[in-house]
């Protein structure tokens, strides 16, 4: 039976292959957790008029307008994703080997309007009435594919999610790919409608907006064995935060001997770098499997949505009251922020921790560094 089992993340449950029903094994993580650095983020909520303007006003990095075929056939979510990705690209410092980056995209109900219209045409006029542009422009993977072509990215690209909760799929897939793929980093893009345009007449609700966010993530230096030596030197020079790792260990994490050990120091610090990008991350995203997998009954948590993550990214650290570091067996409420000051007096670097407890997945943790106070984009509160 075992040889017919594939390894899947625990939330995938059991799978059936070659007629044998088996329980999928939990995925094997490189350490006790996976962490990636977030170099920057960008987000915006586009109204319908703004989306139409994007078709004509958006310019590619080389200053050229968008290709006519793309302008005519692209889904609104693709335009919104492209806009925030371009915005983030402008705000980031020059990335080494930018063409080698990959892109993962998680749209929400992507191509719903176009598919509905195509189905109606199909029922009336048959297959000849369906445009061949439907698949390349309105399927789940077309958003990432379009971004990859337009931004000149040669790394892997595919779409994940597709419905509510697509952000968790995006983050988990993006973290795994970033750690495992031989690329400098990944663009993670999520989009979604808040009130679908087609439902406007029915619900008489507020005007629909297309929410889009883009993250640039890269591997942390601690994920690469060759980075250990330089990391240790940094620790000795005092540029890291010795002691912070001990306070910030999540529940159930394996203890390592000594708070100042290189392993401990590599857990998290403000001066870690994304080695392939040679840049300091503004935040660290960490996924840790829980010792015992939570289920819905014991962890009735609100789902992690784009608004939640964006609020965490855009909330100034100074606005959050200082709290004591959580104890080893303490379980802070999901989605709450805690502000920490590492114990070392020479290193008064503050950072903010958000934790989300995801049923059958584990704990997703966002650690935002103090430097992240530079807001990278406009975040419209009314869109939340």
């Amino acid at each position, binding site marked *: 039976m075992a040889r017919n089992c594939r390894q899947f993340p625990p939330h995938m449950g059991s799978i059936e292959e070659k007629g044998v029903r088996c329980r999928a094994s939990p995925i094997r993580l490189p350490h006790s957790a996976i962490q990636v650095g977030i170099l920057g983020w960008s987000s915006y909520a586009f109204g319908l008029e703004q989306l139409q303007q994007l078709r004509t006003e958006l310019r590619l990095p080389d200053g050229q307008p968008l*290709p*006519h*075929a793309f302008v005519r056939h692209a889904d609104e979510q693709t335009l919104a994703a492209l806009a925030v990705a371009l915005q983030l690209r402008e705000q980031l410092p020059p990335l080494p080997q930018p063409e080698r980056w990959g892109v993962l995209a998680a749209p929400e109900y992507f191509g719903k309007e176009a598919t509905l219209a195509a189905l109606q045409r199909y029922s009336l006029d048959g297959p*000849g009435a369906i445009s*061949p542009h439907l698949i*390349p422009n309105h399927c789940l993977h077309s958003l990432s594919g379009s971004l990859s072509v337009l931004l000149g990215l040669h790394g892997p690209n595919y779409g994940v999610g597709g419905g509510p909760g697509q952000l968790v799929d995006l983050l988990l897939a993006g973290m795994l790919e970033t750690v495992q793929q031989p690329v400098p980093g990944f663009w993670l893009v999520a989009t979604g409608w808040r009130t679908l345009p087609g439902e406007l007449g029915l619900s008489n609700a507020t005007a629909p907006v297309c929410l889009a966010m883009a993250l640039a993530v890269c591997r942390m230096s601690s994920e690469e064995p060759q980075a250990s030596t330089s990391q240790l030197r940094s620790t000795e020079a005092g540029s890291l935060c010795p002691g912070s790792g001990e306070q910030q260990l999540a529940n159930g994490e394996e203890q390592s001997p000594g708070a100042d050990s290189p392993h401990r120091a590599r857990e998290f610090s403000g001066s870690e770098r994304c080695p392939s990008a040679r840049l300091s991350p503004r935040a660290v995203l960490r996924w840790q499997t829980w010792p015992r997998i939570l289920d819905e009954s014991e962890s009735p948590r609100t789902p992690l949505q784009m608004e939640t993550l964006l609020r965490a990214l855009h909330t100034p650290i100074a606005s959050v009251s200082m709290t004591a570091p959580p104890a080893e067996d303490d379980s802070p409420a999901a989605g709450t922020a805690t502000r920490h000051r590492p114990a070392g007096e020479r290193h008064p670097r503050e950072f903010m921790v958000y934790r989300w407890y995801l049923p059958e997945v584990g704990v997703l943790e966002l650690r935002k560094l103090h430097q992240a106070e530079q807001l990278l984009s406009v975040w419209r509160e009314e869109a939340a």
Partner: protein
Amino acid sequence: MDRAQLRQELLELLYQDTGQRYDRLDDSVTLKEGLGLDSVDLVSLVMQIENRFHIRLDSQELQRLEKVGDLLDLLQSKLQQASAAQAA
């Protein structure tokens, strides 16, 4: 339908499909480089042509198309065949 009318129809179909208005459509203009059509655009254009003129273009015929003149030649011959078959 003469060649000038076919050229005008083709201009209109191109506008509907790509959203781009071409000023002139010489026979020597290539479909891919000259008009900037990719493979999906070509398939879409062919589907529109088939629906508009009620003809069928098979894949072997499409593979020989490189320039606007080739497409107009093919359309003319197909339309003549269709009208001859209708008359018979």
